[in-house]
């Protein structure tokens, strides 16, 4: 089977509203219905971004696309600035990408009218990735960008960009190093746009991702040193999907601690779901995904929680 598949700008059959399967709040559907106050300084950054994208989309610009807040916004601005025909949304597909997230990403790209390319990546064949060290993302992104670079060369596409924003460059992001080594540009960071600003601008554009929770790959739920296996990834995916099906919204992670699943919810959802009946429902849903024990983290969702747990970053 080919590692590359290209799709026209048509949502896949059965695709739901992008972002919906990951619990985007209902307010996302109303994006664009009311005026959004965008500060002049933020507008100015967007203008710089559009200028950069227009200048780098000849003959086309490839964007590493996840369907998340950042890459969706980047693709939307690129499509406006350079024309959708000059923008390619490249989706890296592998076992660490949840099926729901893949469907959402394809539907979003189609909505923007840009070309969509699915590029299979094989990080699971790399023992350095599978060993799950604290710089696991470096090996994953090395694989992704190497394959995107090769595909782009075949297509005559010179510029590759990702959705790294100005906030990301301050955190523990070994994956960003792999991108820089392969000449991947990060125009959002380049013009100084941070996450909050991107959400404001996304809302102003009516993008359904403006308040979508972040959605890193499934491997991020495994503590460092726990080997990445298909079985563990599917356990996490199944548990999170089951919790979404219960109605849990917002940020949600099922952290894999062997036989124990540690569930992180947003603070609002903690208050809603930690009644005895709610806890029983959570327990039942997660156990059906193959975990023997289920615990809820009382601090709730924390981005990079496992980095803190492993001492990679400070609490």
């Amino acid at each position, binding site marked *: 089977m080919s590692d590359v598949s290209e799709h026209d700008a048509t949502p896949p059959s059965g695709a739901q509203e992008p972002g919906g399967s990951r619990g985007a709040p209902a307010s996302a559907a109303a994006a664009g219905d009311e005026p959004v106050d965008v500060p002049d300084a933020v507008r100015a950054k967007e203008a710089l971004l559009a200028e950069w994208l227009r200048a780098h989309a000849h003959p086309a610009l490839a964007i590493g696309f996840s369907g998340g807040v950042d890459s969706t916004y980047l693709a939307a601005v690129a499509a406006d600035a350079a024309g959708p025909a000059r923008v390619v949304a490249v989706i890296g597909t592998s076992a660490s990408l949840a099926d729901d997230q893949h469907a959402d990403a394809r539907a979003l790209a189609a909505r923007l009218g840009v070309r969509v390319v699915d590029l299979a990546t094989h990080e699971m064949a790399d023992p350095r990735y599978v060993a799950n060290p604290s710089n696991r993302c470096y090996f994953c992104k090395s694989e992704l960008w190497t394959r995107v670079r090769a595909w782009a060369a075949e297509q005559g596409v010179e510029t590759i960009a990702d959705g790294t924003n100005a906030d990301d460059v301050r955190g523990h992001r070994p994956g960003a190093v792999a991108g820089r080594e392969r000449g991947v540009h990060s125009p959002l960071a380049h013009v100084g746009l941070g996450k909050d600003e991107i959400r404001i601008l996304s809302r102003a554009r009516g993008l359904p991702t403006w308040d979508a929770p972040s959605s890193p790959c499934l491997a991020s739920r495994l503590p460092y040193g726990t080997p990445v296996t298909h079985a563990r990834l599917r356990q996490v995916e199944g548990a999170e999907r089951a919790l979404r099906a219960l109605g849990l919204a917002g940020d949600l992670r099922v952290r894999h601690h062997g036989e124990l699943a540690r569930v992180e919810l947003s603070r609002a959802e903690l208050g809603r779901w930690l009644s005895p009946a709610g806890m029983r429902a959570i327990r039942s849903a997660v156990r059906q995904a193959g975990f023997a024990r289920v615990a809820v983290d009382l601090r709730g969702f924390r981005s990079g929680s496992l980095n803190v747990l*492993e001492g990679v970053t400070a609490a």
Partner: protein
Amino acid sequence: MTVQRLERALAAIGLPGTVEIRGSLAVLTLQGEVSLEDETLRADAVRIASAHGYTHFAVELPDIGEGGASLHRG
């Protein structure tokens, strides 16, 4: 022992159970069913675990059927 002190401190705020340590994660397995809807109770529990040196604190959801005992705080 630190774990026993942590268990006593948690029991004192209405969270009786046994604590299992996994690195800097403390997991409390509740004795019986306890409502954790109260944000103050959750914050108190996290603060206590943090004071004992744990960056993460989780409560294992007990295996109690529909007819299980319910221990509501307060």
